[in-house]
């Protein structure tokens, strides 16, 4: 899986995975978040607009990232989720902890 990493506004790092976020791709997402935290930053936005599909392994990777960033005093937020991603978030009751924002800009809009 291809994952773009760019610096966004307010010191937020934006991760943009493309394609299917499943058990094949999940480890790359975990590693990307870990590398960001290791480099001393902890505010991450995951831009899901290029993700066509997510499964529970993909969710697991996002939750792992959420825990990693929070332990470092930051957060992980998601944006641009399609209907399938929103369906999975809703059925797994994870909307509260991984609230889907429309855009990356809105994700840290409160900050």
């Amino acid at each position: 899986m291809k994952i773009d990493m760019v610096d966004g506004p307010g010191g937020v790092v934006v991760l943009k995975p493309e394609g299917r976020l499943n058990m094949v791709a999940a480890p790359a997402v975990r590693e990307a978040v870990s590398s960001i935290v290791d480099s001393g930053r902890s505010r991450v936005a995951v831009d899901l607009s290029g993700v066509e599909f997510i499964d529970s392994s993909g969710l697991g990777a996002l939750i792992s990232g959420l825990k990693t960033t929070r332990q470092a005093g930051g957060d992980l937020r998601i944006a641009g989720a399609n209907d399938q991603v929103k369906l999975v978030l809703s059925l797994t009751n994870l909307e509260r902890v991984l609230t889907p924002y429309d855009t990356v800009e809105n994700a840290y809009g409160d900050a």
Partner: protein
Amino acid sequence: MSDMVTRTVRLTAPPDTVDTVHDLLDALWPSVPDVSARDRMSLDTAIIELAANVIQHANRGKPITATLTVIAFPDRIEATLSDSGEVGEVDIEGRSMPAADELAESGRGIALMKALVDTVEHRRVDGFNHWTLVREREQVRQPDAPPRHLPSVSISGIIDEMARQRALEEMGILDSPPEDRFDRVTRLAKQLFGVGGAKINLIDGDRQWSKSTAGYGDEVVPRDKAVCAVTIEDDRTFVVQDLLADPLLADRGVPGEVEFYAGHPLQAPGGERIGALCVYDGKPRQFSEREKEMLRDLADWVQQELTASHELSRAAEVQQGLLPQSLISMPDWDIAGMCLPARAVGGDFYDWYPVGEGAAITLADTMGKGIGSAIIAATVRAVLRSAARFGDVAGAVDLAAASLNADLDTTGLFVTLLHGRLDMDSGEFTYVDAGHGLTVVARRDGAIERLRSHTPPLGVDLETEWQSHSVILNPGDVLVTASDGLLDLYDGTLDALDKIGALALLASTSAEVTDAVRARARGVAPDDVTVVVVRRDG
């Protein structure tokens, strides 16, 4: 059905991953008419969860193979995944969604599947896991949608059918000749109920085959025209007073021949419903509770007979397993044997095993056919095998005869036997022929020599002094020994031995000779046929 769409993919993981499954699904959806975005999304997710679960957990690091089939029906979509993983009990019921604030990174797969589709089922059949997912399609949930005809095929049905077909085939009864033990039941049923016909029907793939018929009726009927094919869908007696008046069954009736039907399912030893005992008549009629009970009793009887055949065929497997499976390694020698019992089991056997610088070779024929002879044959084989470890050929036969005499006397049976030892370097074959006399040596130059029998069969005369004789097999010579069943395949006289000897000289391997005899004997041999061929290359 034109709007039913099926796709199947075989997976081997590694190297296949869930992406292989994604690609199948992406290719499937354009062919499914009117699939809603929600159905598609839900099934994509549930099927990927299932595939991931199997690939990840099934075998803990060992490669797995799996077959995924997706069938889109007008009213529902079913997916089944059959995999080779070693999974024990799967608690689908008990899997609930982990609470969100626990921030668990795994453990949501099965709960998610349950939330996405209407049925999640796991079964273990024949060492495979079969997972089935079913989702009712959204469009037919609309109250105004017209009712649709549901095809009777479904994936769990396919799995049951696979198990059923295998059980039926294992019984080895399909296309077997008529047997009185079954015909007796159908004759009785026909008389007892005063109907036009009675049958024992087996449902085999897409046809119905009758093992026994009393009265009229075809031996083979397409499955979709057979009423018994409906009977086996349930374990109760199925009665239709007037087939032609029943819109769902009318096309299975035959006016004036099969208008009334009553049938009770027949089970394989494992419980699979493989067919039915049925009675039928050319005009509609009633069938009382008491008659149902009698039909059930008769069906139980048929089932007992079927089980007996099954046990007999297992006995046959055991007996075939007693024959030498592997070749002994003797440079420049080529040995082959075959044993074809007239019934499931028989009184013939052959045997060989290494002894010193060569091999012991035996061919024996117990008088009679069937199970009694088979038990004695197994005993003779065991006794000779242990006796062959002591002393010479005559000594071995003497020891075996002494231990068998009491048994043979009690059972009133006797055994003809050729037992010999081959020295692979000199080509000398030293043998005792106990009333057998069906051995020839075909010489390279075309001469055929019969080996004489000098002593009576085992079990005839307790005072027999066993004497061995010997013959030298030179390069290019072939020794053939057979049971008397072989003679029946030719003209019934000893000339058959000359013919088989001549055949052996023409053949380039020993197995060619045994294959030729097997082909000649198949289906026509009235007696057990056993042949051993020993050729010295050169």
